[in-house]
Each structure stands twice: as C-alpha cells, then as structure tokens.
C-alpha cells in the first residue's frame, strides 16, 4: 500500500487552489525561475507521453538544482525517470510503464533501482493513472471504473472497490492524484499562459487542472490575438498557469508533434552507455548533457543545428 493520502485529499487540494492568485498577468519568465518553484519532496506530474512532448527542458533545469525526495509521475515513463533515479532526485516513481520502447529492451536503471528497493515504484494501468489525474481535474476524490478489477495491480497502490448505489455492480474507485507541480511542454502559448497543443493531447489538460502549481514551456510565444483567433485550440487557460518559459526544442531529443521528430539514434547511444557502465553511464550522460551546459541552448548545441533541422523536416513530412 504505497499511495499517499495527500494525493487524493480533494478538500485540501481545493483549498490550496482557492488560495492561489489567478491573475491574468504575464507568466513569462526564465526556465530557471519556473523550476525554482519546485520544493524537495514534491510530487511532480510530467506531461506528454513516453518520448512525445516530454517537458525535458523543465526536467533539465530542475535537475541542475540538485533536488531531493521528489516523486515523478507520468503515464509512460521514459528516460527522464532514469535521470531522476540516478541523480538521486527521485525516490518514488508512479507510472504504468517504464522504458524507451521495444527496440531498447528493459530499462536497466528501473531494474537496478526498483529490484534493490532504492526507489519505490507504484504501478497503475495506463487508464488507471489517467483517471487519477482526471478525478483530480474534476475536483473529486475518486472516479468509478471497470479497469484494473481482478488484477494484482489493485493491491499495489491500495486501490479500493465500491458498490454502485444504483446497480450494485462492483467498481474500482480510482483515487484522485493531486500533484504539487505539473511540468508541461506545449507548441504555443501567449504570455498570459493560454496554451495550445497540436496533435495528440496526451493527458496534459487533466494534469494542468490537477496540480497545485503549473509550469509550462512553449516552443513559441505568440501574440494574444493569435490565441483569440483560434480559441478552440486552447486546452489550458492562462489562469491555470503559474510560470511560463519560451524554450524552442523544449522536448528535444524527444518529439514535439509537428515541430520535430524524436532521435532514436541518440536513445541507442544513451542505452549503449548503460549497457557498458550501468548507472555510471547515466551519470556520465547527466554530467555532459545536464550539469555541464549552463544554458538550455548550450545543451541543444551538443546535438548540433543539422540534426535539429533534420528532425524538424521529418516532423513536417509526417504531419502534412
């Protein structure tokens, strides 16, 4: 039974949100200012899914502050979860699946840290975790569902069942998950934090509603009029957002729909480092890619313009 009661305390979460300023002011600031809002021990929900629209720039800036005691939750956890484990920032991971993808095999880092008990691993089904964010987004302590019933996953997080008051049917009462902080990357926002997402929306809109503090990076900051010209495309209203930073290639080398493709060759090189040196391979990678570059643009420079331009061209080919 690993679920923390504060994760589904809808009353406390509501009070916290009521007390929060919701000004239509500019939220625009630096990446460093955004992540300064994260405190040790916080539960951070990461947007995107696997290697798509991962808030990698926010994770990058966060890890540079050497945080401790964090929980990372994400529907499908990619290697940002490994960074959290190896850097010592994360002591609990909440997800439905961890790895990069079939060609890269099992996550050696997940195996090392979870098998030894150094990091707590709380597993939900994909929809189960989605409904945890959805319940929180709706401001209720749980949502009834048919998923996960009868499986051993019910015991992992301490799930309970309820009897439907109308039909008598047994249902999974999926507990809400109210994270302290949401980390999200979107294609465009105006300076007030009104966010638009292209392509698959993943779970970002629910996570923004569920979290106490919402930190966003955007590929592009557009004039307010451009948002007003297409308000149907806005999925996160500005009043939900606490801090916004303009970070082109803010998910790279993960993909951002329509903007750039992922870099599977880079993933392979990263995994090769782990196959050769285990967690030290990740530590070396973090040293080179996270701690050494002092600005995010220096991190991107390690990949080079040609690769980034090619990734953008592939994205255009795949979405037009």
């Amino acid at each position, binding site marked *: 039974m690993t679920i923390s009661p504060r994760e589904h305390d809808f009353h406390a979460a509501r009070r916290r949100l009521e007390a929060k300023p919701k000004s239509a002011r500019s939220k625009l600031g630096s990446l460093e200012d955004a992540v300064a809002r994260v405190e040790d021990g916080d539960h951070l929900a990461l947007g995107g899914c696997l290697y798509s629209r991962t808030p990698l720039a926010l994770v990058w800036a966060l890890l540079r502050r050497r945080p401790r005691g964090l929980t990372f939750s994400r529907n499908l956890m990619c290697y940002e979860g490994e960074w959290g484990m190896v850097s010592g920032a994360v002591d609990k991971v909440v997800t*439905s699946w961890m790895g990069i993808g079939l060609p890269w095999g099992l996550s050696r880092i997940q195996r090392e840290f*979870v098998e030894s008990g150094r990091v707590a691993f709380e597993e939900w089904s994909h929809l189960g975790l989605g409904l945890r964010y959805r319940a929180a987004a709706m401001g209720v302590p749980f949502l009834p569902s048919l998923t996960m019933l009868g499986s051993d996953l019910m015991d992992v997080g301490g799930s309970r069942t309820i009897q439907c008051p109308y039909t008598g049917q047994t249902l999974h009462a999926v507990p809400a998950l109210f994270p302290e902080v949401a980390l999200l990357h979107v294609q465009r926002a105006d300076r007030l934090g009104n966010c638009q997402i292209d392509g698959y929306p993943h779970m970002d809109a629910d996570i923004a509603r569920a979290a106490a503090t919402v930190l966003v990076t955007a590929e592009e900051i557009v004039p307010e009029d451009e948002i007003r010209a297409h308000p149907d495309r806005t999925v996160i209203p500005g009043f939900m957002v606490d801090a916004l930073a303009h970070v082109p290639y803010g998910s790279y080398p993960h993909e951002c729909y329509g903007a750039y*493709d992922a870099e599977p060759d880079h993933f392979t090189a990263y995994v090769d480092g782990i196959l050769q040196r285990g967690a030290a391979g990740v530590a070396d990678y973090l040293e080179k890619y996270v701690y050494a570059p002092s600005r995010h643009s220096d991190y991107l420079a390690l990949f080079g313009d040609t690769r980034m331009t090619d990734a953008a061209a592939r994205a255009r080919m*795949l979405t037009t």
Partner: protein
Amino acid sequence: MSATVNELLAVMGARELRDDTTVFTGVGAPMMASVLAQRTHAPRLTMMVEGGVIGPMWKPGELPISTNEMRAAYRAQMLPGISDAFLLAQRGFFDVGFIGGAQIDRHGNLNTSAIGSYARPKVRLPGSGGANDIISLCREVMILTVHEKRRFTERVDFVTSPGYLDGGDSRRRRGLLFGGVSRVITNLGIFGFEAESRRMQLLALHPGATVEQVQENTGFEVLVSPSLTTTTPPTDEELGILRMLDPRRQFIG
C-alpha cells in the same frame, strides 16, 4: 516464400480479425496484423492505438515504434486524449483488443510487471502500460506471442492483466462483466479457452508444428481440442504486403 516468426504471428493474427469491426491494437506484431487485415479481407476495420490515435493510415517504411509518435498518428481520423481513447473501450466501442507477448498462464492471465516476488522482484518488468485496460475493457482480446516455455507458465507470478483469473466464472465474479481472452496466437498454433474451466486449449496447429512440440514448449498441461485443425501457411500475397509495409524488416524480423 518462407515466413519469419513475426511474419507468421502477423499473418495468423490478421486472419482472426473480421471486417466491419474495431480493433484496439498494440505496437509490434498486433499492429502488423491489423494493417495486414485492412489490406486483405478487412478494409472496413478501424484501428485505434493507445497513444490516442483513431483510424491512422500508416506509411510503408515509416511504421511506429511507440504508440505515441507522429508515425502512429499518420493520416489519423481523430486524436483524442489517451484517457478518452481508453474510455471509448470502457464504453464498449472496441470489438477486439490485440496485444503482444508477456508471461501468460493457462487461464490467459498476463504478467508484464515482475518475475519473482513483486516487492523484491528477481526481474522488474516495464509494467502494464495499456495492456490491463485493453484486456479489461474490450469485447474480446487476442494475444500474439512467441511460444516459449518460460512465457507459458502454470500460474503467472503477478496478474498484471486479467485473463480468466482462476478459471470458471472468477473473472466475472471479480467485477469484469465484459470481455475475456478469446485467442492466444503463437508461432506454433492457435489457442482458445475451454468454455467451462476456462483453461487454454489448442485449437489449431501451424503447418509443421506438432502437439508434442507445443507441450514441450508449455509449462502446463495443454488441452487439445477434439476438432484440432491445421492452419493454412502464410501466402505470398500476405508476406508481400508485410514486406512492403516494413522494407527494413524492423518489425517482421
């Protein structure tokens, strides 16, 4: 043409899909099977994948590695959020759920979580992903997997995704009123589940495979259907389509 293991799985999987239906498909062999079905006998089959993608028309040579990438969404009809995609299955819109390999037991329960004790596993596996949801929420589920003794075990160490649980009506008694595993398709044959006991039962052998070979590669007693049949080998047309879709043989091996 002779088929690789993955080609055999894709062909046999495709043949089990019917036209005018919907399929919630995983990546790898299930994805190849679904596209092959669309391009042969099931042109009115609609696919959905876990990343929240409905009705894609994947580009030959650019098949997706994950369900959440632009290749998976290529020429899609709709991109709902991930939770909303799964909720379509909970509502009952998906005729078939199609998932890939895992540790599986005689009642069709799947383990993709941990080998050994869950708290201190010998091998920590990636986790459920959407497999638990697909197996819980689709009208029927088909599993495509390589047939190996270490995968086919008497009882899985951990039920990540519930098949028929302890057999009989135990799945229904635990609140899963709908669905169930209808087929397990391997490189040796096609299996169903006996109506009463809900134990795995061999329905058909692929050409060249024998009952003895199936038993040798299975960690529990294999029930054999009294009307055991043999499948038709993959045709040149089927293999040709798969090789056109995957010219670099990333998925078909």
